[in-house]
């Protein structure tokens, strides 16, 4: 696998494993936005360099799965990060359907948001994209998401 794919996956697998609450999710997001706004970052090559389609598809699948597991952990009510997963013996790392769908939107937000941010040379579109994707984690009853959408 091409090096920038491998490097991003190694970093993401370490970082996302540590996402056990909303504050850590916000930290993860801040870090990824920073990477995507740095032209020389392997994250930018991984998402925006024309590459072998199959390698790229495998990379996106694996990243989405890592995001889905983190999302699943945060959405799952219960004792916490060490939540009991014995109920799903056939899917040792299978996040549930809602978490999978949110992960698709988060990945699309990273991909589409960074495209818009690159042509605008402005991180705001990417942040707006992530605000919308993170609504389940920021909206509490009657409250609108107030993430970092206005952060420059």
């Amino acid at each position, binding site marked *: 696998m091409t090096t920038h794919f491998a490097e991003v996956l190694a970093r993401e697998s370490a970082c996302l494993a540590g996402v056990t609450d909303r504050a850590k999710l916000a930290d993860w997001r801040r870090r990824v936005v920073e990477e995507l706004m740095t032209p020389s970052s392997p994250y930018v090559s991984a998402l925006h360099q024309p590459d072998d389609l199959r390698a790229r598809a495998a990379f996106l699948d694996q990243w989405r799965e890592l995001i889905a597991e983190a999302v699943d952990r945060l959405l799952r009510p219960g004792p916490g990060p060490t939540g009991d997963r014995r109920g799903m013996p056939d899917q040792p790392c299978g996040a549930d359907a809602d978490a999978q769908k949110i992960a698709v939107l988060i990945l699309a937000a990273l991909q589409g948001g960074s495209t818009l941010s690159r*042509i605008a040379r402005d991180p705001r579109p990417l942040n707006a994209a992530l605000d919308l994707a993170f609504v389940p984690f920021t909206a509490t009853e009657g409250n609108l998401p107030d993430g970092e959408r206005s952060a420059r």
Partner: protein
Amino acid sequence: MTTADSQNGKRLTARGAKTRARIVDAAADLMYVKGVGTTTLDDVLAASGVSKSQLYHHFEGKDALVRAVVDHVGERVIERERRALGRVSTIRGLRRWRDALVQNSALQHGAYGCALGSLAGEVSDHDALARHTLSRLFTEWQGLLSGVLRRLQDRGVLPAEAPIDQLATGLMAALQGGYLLAQTARDVTPMATSIDMALAHIESLSAG
């Protein structure tokens, strides 16, 4: 259609305009299917059937041609979106807009993506002029989505404090990212999921 050339101070005869349009059409099709980077001027010559001297009469090089393609594709996409979104004022109407885009993409198994988005992915780095034009076009497109969300807000479907322009940007990013995921997967499903989730998140703001 003749703006770029009139900016260069050239006056086009009807036949010249036709030739120029033929070149731009062929280049737009090639760049959509093959990508901007891998499309050569020789490809464009072969596909349009014009001569090399005709091509260089209208465009001094590939960058100039790419800019003309951006203008042409942008005009077409904005026109299509204005027709699709200009009067939408319901979530249901937004879903119909989503259905049309997803179904069009499904016809090609998602393979080619958004005509404007693919250009954005490829030209943004090395051509500031094309990048500015693309940025302006996306702002215009997002403005159409903002219009829809504002009408939803006026009707009380979205709360008064909803950040309309940012939601529109988020929806555009979900659409563009969805296109790119579908393109990579050669399957339209992630595009459908991405827009559906974005719309569901927007709708959930009204439930508060």
